[in-house]
């Protein structure tokens, strides 16, 4: 194959107050014409730095670099500013990470695409600019949105605009910097599909940078794994995923939650990437399960081991050797006897914003964001509330915790109705429900030491504890007493989340509300927090309402799952039933869209009646998007709730009908591939 771009021994270092930091060290790889190369690694591994160097972009201040990036016979690192300007966008184009912040906010998107074409004089012969722009939008599956401002488009549409812009000049190489991070799972899959499609039609090469190996499985031909600024493994995608040869690749793959129903001991990676704690030898040595004493002193370099594969590990043979997977079938613990009902939510309707004076005079009411929620939680049980962003899952949690008085509905704890507003609840009621927030950076007061953060709730609730209480609770969450005198900013994200969990546990609650508590954390850290939660669940018998967009994480320890779509519960079922026979069309869509570790050539099923959209609160919220919509019936009448043996389904189609007309794809296959829903 013809080489399009070749990176040779790239070294990049930034100068700072603490001396030089090697951000990228000795990275070499090449991309052939039309090839899709993936670059994967944890945050801070230097993958984006490499990608942006391919566009000749980087902080010019305090940077040293050696090596070459040969593109079309010239070294990009030696190219002058004018030549780079000519090259960028025209021959090497970027699809940025966050389309919302990457499109110029004050400029219509059509103008931004036009600017790209005009700058590089890339208008095809015999075509008007307007026609070309419309054609580009059509290519990425958008209507003519040229007159829109970026904020008028959804995140997925914005990303399509940036893609249209990137391919406007038919570049040879497309650099994609985490292009689907922050999008909902179904949108994410559509974008990936679009990219694969474009590649087939236009034939450009791609450098795809991501932290998500499962996504690369869908699009990349070859993958490079980066750790601490170095490439540790380069291999064809399938080979890497099925038989990783570097311990780090192995750990990364193991960190990805899957739904095979197996419980793997100590899965994932230990620790986090810390550039200040590295041995002189292999950089991965402090976190490596295969490390020997030699690893500590002997630097490892990338060496070819087979035709297509290079690894930077002297013990790669041991790593790649197939290991008997420790598949421990999880026993479905059935609690003996009828468990006590802890929380019950009946007929909950929620809306934001108290109507203002004008609204009240005009008789306007704000629409409900959450409608008709019925949910029960038994003592010691974990119920997961799953849905896309904006589906109202956190809103429900707010209402249960008392921060958002519901418009209608009753919330009962232990059979007693809770006051709707926080200020009317008793201290004892407040103690029994503890809330853990998504963002550990913001949930600990940065001006207080951990000790004072943990002591405050004890004082406030007047709980009698012995002197060792703080230490033992820290131990419970896998930390030690040394943390008590630290400030939150001296802790890593995972450690802060552990403190937040400790704070909640200290007051012996009956119910923990976990609001997306994993989504701000790296994959490897997530895996360990999940383990912690699982052990706490067993030790403390505390019930949890676990809110997540990630079905795969949820299945690892939830007993039952409630699926939420646009403020309405679509389905409630125990986890096994949900994965084996999702039945509900929306649950099916979610499971299908989640990328697995194998390429699945996913094509989203088209909605049956795209124009017959539901008005919120009137028909089924899925109407207009549902592939199995019955007709206008779905948009016009509320679907009935069909009770099953361990939950319910809200659909116009009967349960047996749903089962027989199942989608062409095989569910059990998807069940093995579930990943995130956002």
């Amino acid at each position, binding site marked *: 194959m013809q080489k399009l771009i070749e990176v040779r021994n790239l070294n990049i270092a930034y100068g700072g107050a603490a001396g030089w930091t090697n951000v990228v060290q000795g990275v070499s790889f090449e991309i052939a014409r039309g090839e899709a190369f993936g670059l994967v690694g944890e945050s801070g591994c230097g993958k984006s730095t490499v990608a942006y160097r391919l566009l000749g972009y980087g902080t010019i201040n305090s940077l040293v670099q050696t090596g070459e990036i040969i593109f079309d016979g010239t070294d990009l690192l030696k190219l002058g500013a004018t030549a780079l300007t000519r090259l960028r966008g025209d021959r090497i184009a970027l699809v940025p990470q966050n389309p919302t912040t990457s499109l110029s906010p004050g400029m219509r998107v059509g103008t931004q695409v036009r600017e790209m074409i005009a700058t590089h004089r890339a208008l095809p012969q015999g075509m008007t600019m307007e026609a070309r722009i419309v054609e580009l939008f059509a290519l990425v599956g958008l209507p003519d949105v040229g007159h829109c401002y970026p904020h008028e488009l959804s995140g997925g549409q914005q990303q399509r605009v940036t893609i249209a812009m990137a391919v406007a000049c038919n570049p040879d190489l497309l650099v994609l910097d985490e292009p689907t991070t922050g999008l909902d799972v179904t949108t994410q899959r559509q974008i990936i599909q679009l990219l694969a499609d474009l590649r087939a039609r236009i034939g450009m090469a791609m450098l795809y940078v991501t932290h998500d190996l499962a996504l690369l499985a869908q699009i990349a031909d070859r993958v490079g794994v980066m750790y601490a600024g170095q490439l540790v493994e380069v291999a064809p995608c399938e080979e890497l995923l099925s038989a990783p040869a570097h311990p780090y690749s192995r750990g990364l793959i193991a960190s990805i939650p899957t739904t095979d129903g197996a419980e793997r001991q100590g899965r994932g990676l230990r620790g986090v990437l810390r550039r200040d704690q590295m041995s002189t030898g292999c950089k991965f040595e402090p976190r490596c399960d295969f490390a020997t004493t030699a690893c500590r002193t002997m630097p490892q370099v990338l060496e070819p081991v087979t035709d297509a594969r290079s690894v930077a590990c002297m013990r790669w043979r041991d790593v790649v050797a197939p290991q008997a997977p420790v598949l421990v079938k999880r026993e479905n613990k059935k609690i003996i006897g009828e468990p006590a009902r802890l929380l019950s939510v009946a007929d909950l309707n929620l809306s934001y914003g108290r109507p203002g004076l004008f609204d009240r005079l005009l008789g306007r009411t704000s629409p409900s964001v959450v409608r008709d929620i019925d949910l029960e939680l038994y003592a010691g049980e974990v119920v997961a509330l799953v849905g896309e962003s904006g589906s109202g899952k956190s809103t429900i949690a707010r209402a249960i915790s008392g921060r958002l008085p519901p418009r209608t509905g009753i919330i009962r704890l232990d059979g007693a109705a809770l006051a709707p507003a926080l200020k009317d609840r008793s201290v004892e009621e407040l103690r029994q429900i503890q*809330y853990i927030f998504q963002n550990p950076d913001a949930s600990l007061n940065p001006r207080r030491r951990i000790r004072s953060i943990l002591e405050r709730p004890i004082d406030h609730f007047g709980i009698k504890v012995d002197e060792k209480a703080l230490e033992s609770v820290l131990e419970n969450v896998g930390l030690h007493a040394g943390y008590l005198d630290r*400030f939150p900013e001296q802790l890593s994200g995972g450690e802060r989340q552990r403190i937040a969990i400790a704070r909640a546990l200290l007051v012996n609650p009956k119910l923990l509300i976990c609001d997306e508590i994993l989504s701000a954390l790296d994959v490897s850290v997530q895996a360990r927090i999940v383990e912690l939660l699982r052990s706490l669940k067993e030790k403390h018998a505390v019930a949890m309402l676990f809110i997540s967009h990630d079905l795969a994480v949820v299945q690892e320890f939830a007993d039952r799952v409630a699926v939420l779509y646009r403020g309405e519960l679509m389905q409630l079922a125990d986890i096994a039933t949900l994965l084996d026979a999702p039945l509900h069309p929306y649950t099916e869509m979610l499971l299908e869209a989640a990328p697995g570790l194998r390429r699945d050539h996913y094509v989203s099923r088209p909605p049956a009646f795209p124009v017959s959209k539901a008005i919120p609160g009137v028909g089924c919220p899925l109407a207009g998007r549902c592939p199995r919509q019955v007709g206008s019936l779905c948009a016009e009448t509320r679907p009935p709730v069909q009770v099953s043996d361990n939950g319910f389904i809200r659909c116009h189609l009967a349960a047996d009908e749903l089962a027989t007309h199942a989608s062409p794809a095989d569910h059990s296959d998807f069940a093995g591939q579930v990943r995130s829903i956002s």
Partner: protein
Amino acid sequence: MTLATFISSRRFKVDLWRATPGPFKVGAVILVAHGLFAVLGFFWTPYGYAEMGAGLPLSGISWQHPMGLDQIGRDVFSRFMHGAHIVLLLSFAGTMLGMVTGTTLGLLSGYVGGWFDEITQRIVEAMISIPFLALALVMIIAAGPALAGAPVLIVFVVGLVYAPRITRIARAAAMEIATREYVAVAELRGEGTWSIVFREILPNAANVLLVEFSLRLSYAPILIGALGFLGFGIRPPTPEWGLMISENRNLLIASPVTVFGPGLGLASLVIGFNLFTDGLSRMLGQRPVAGA
């Protein structure tokens, strides 16, 4: 980096001097010099600040009279020296008054919201809409001749001119902090409003407020000077620097030093404050909000 961790860090103890930004250092040195000068001037001046006939009026610069003599033969340097502590004290007291009022009102208004916030904001808005110099002058006139020129009135006026502006900053900070999850955690625990404002919000607004204080303090000598310059400030013969510049302005041709001497003093004090603010805000990771 928060101030608390900054101070408790080893780096702070080991080489505080090297760790602080340049402007902060220069500003601190200027301010310390001004402070010492003010203390000295409070206890001792070469001549009495109101002593007429210390030398020949308008006789220019000499060793005895480094800033010359004014129209009625008072030693300008002695007056300048004596004025130093007055300018400093008035600035501090006025800014402090504005700060306490503004912070309390702003934090509460930003956190509590609702009608209280609405009313506070409307009043603040109205007060800010009156150009601050005009507001200050109108208040001085309203106080009448009995109070005119009294230090208390100047302090009160500076405080009242500053309070709405500080309220705005404190409110914005409180509103932003109120969305943080640790505040929600405290609310879910059932903590009261005052407890949340003082335990959770105030410590986290401290950086913003400190920079704001420093910024307002920088401008206080100018505001007080402007009042003096226009003849609505401290009552003569008390040598407030703005008043001195105004008094000696008709000597601009005959003896410019009588104007630019006190002027240099005033400017250097404000430069000191501004450099200090600039360095402080860099150290605390804040951006000072410009605009009077």
